[in-house]
């Protein structure tokens, strides 16, 4: 299971995009859903891309938690859910790192979004696909401006997560 997950971590995003394209294409097994070239298709692809990272890193984070946390929660009468919550709370920095990394992968991803979204203006054009297009059209200033927006976005999310972690840690 973990091996599968770790392999999924290294999957090229274009391959994932290709597979989802095959599934969602009109004559594909899920073609009836009519999702190809919609923003929903991009969401599906990005979730599939982010999931292995989020899962593998969360698993590692939880496994690294002191085994006494679980025993302590259990002996104080906590049920399965409350015990899991207690363990997650102790691992929250590592869990937040998992979220940040998964988010980073999604934010910077271009291959899958391009393939399953189609880079349609006002419909499925993401920041990254827009940068690709602008660059190929020789519109560097637009590409750089969009790149800066992307960076600012990444920075903002990271800062927000940091702030959230800081709170309640007193």
């Amino acid at each position, binding site marked *: 299971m973990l091996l599968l997950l770790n392999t999924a971590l290294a999957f090229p995003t274009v391959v994932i995009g290709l597979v989802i394209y095959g599934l969602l294409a009109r004559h594909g097994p899920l073609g009836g859903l009519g999702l190809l070239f919609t923003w929903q298709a991009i969401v599906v692809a990005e979730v599939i891309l982010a999931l292995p990272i989020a899962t593998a890193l969360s698993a590692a984070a939880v496994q690294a938690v*002191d085994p*006494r*946390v679980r*025993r*302590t*929660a*259990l*002996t*104080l*009468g*906590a*049920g399965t859910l*409350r015990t899991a919550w*207690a363990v997650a*709370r*102790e691992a929250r920095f590592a869990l937040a790192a998992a979220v940040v990394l998964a988010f980073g992968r999604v934010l910077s991803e271009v291959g899958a979004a391009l393939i399953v979204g189609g880079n349609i203006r006002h419909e499925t054009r993401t920041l990254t696909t827009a940068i690709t297009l602008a660059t190929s059209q020789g519109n560097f200033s637009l590409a750089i401006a969009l790149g800066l927006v992307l960076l600012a976005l990444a920075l903002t999310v990271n800062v927000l997560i940091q702030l959230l972690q800081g709170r*309640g*840690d*007193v």
Partner: protein
Amino acid sequence: MATFEVTGLRHDYGARTVLALDTLTIAPGARLALVGPNGSGKSTLLRLLAFLEAPSAGVIALDGRPVAARSARRAARRRVTLVEQRPYLFRGTVADNVAFGLRAGGVRGPAVTQRARAALDRLQLQGLRDRDARQLSEGEIQRVAVARALAVEPVALLLDEPASSADRAAQQAMFAALTDEQARRPLTVVFASHLLEDAYRWADGLLALHQGRPSPVTPENLFRVDLPGGTAMQQVAVGPLRIDVVSGRSGPATLAIAPDEIVLSAEPLRSSARNVFRGRIVRLAEHGAEMRVTVDAGIELVARITSRSFEEMGLAVGREVYASFKSVAVKVF
């Protein structure tokens, strides 16, 4: 009805049996001390009694009801609480930690704060209530963990080496709190300790374990030796003393002299006892109608005598006495 009733208990880690107890009954309100060297199975027994692990074989009954199924263990955990040797405090304040078990037990609203407060007060921790749990000393962590465990009002409290990390004052505060709690309601306390003095002073029962099994002797007067071998009657060096033992074995072994096999006298005895050593009384522990007297004779020997003979002999710390025991009283294993 007994709080714990253990029958045919066995616990294995892999192919190794770490605990084997045929029977053990612990009455409500008991103060049972588990004593024994490291690796003797004390912590394993506590984890099994806390229902954190299922035994490899055998049954533990809580208040007369056998606890076997997973769901039964979960229910039983609400009634038994273990404080580990190095307790873990969750992130947050001391009060948050004490509230954890209360919330898990379904207590809501102002009652949580109230009961957490009361538990902290009982261990004289009122000043620590709002402190970050990660910034406490070891002794404080220990006491907060005990307060957290007592807050949920368990029928049994299990303590693993409660005295190992706490300083003397913290220990006394803890034992005093446990005494108060037992005066308030029937609370069964089982604790593992290698500090025998404390175990004897506070406990009213004693279970000595050796390699996962009940040991016929208490772990005091246990000595690692190198038997010379050769004859059935041999003399072995223990510290500066030479002790006569009866054993055909040779090589590394453990000698055990049961405290009730040691006779104390003011003058050297003319008797069949081959081992007679002069020493000085260094410690005393009263235990019901009997006394445990520690004599430093080059090595520390603990003798168990009745309080009456103790008084009649006029013994006291610092007094010189003779400790005698027969060579057949020395068990070799």
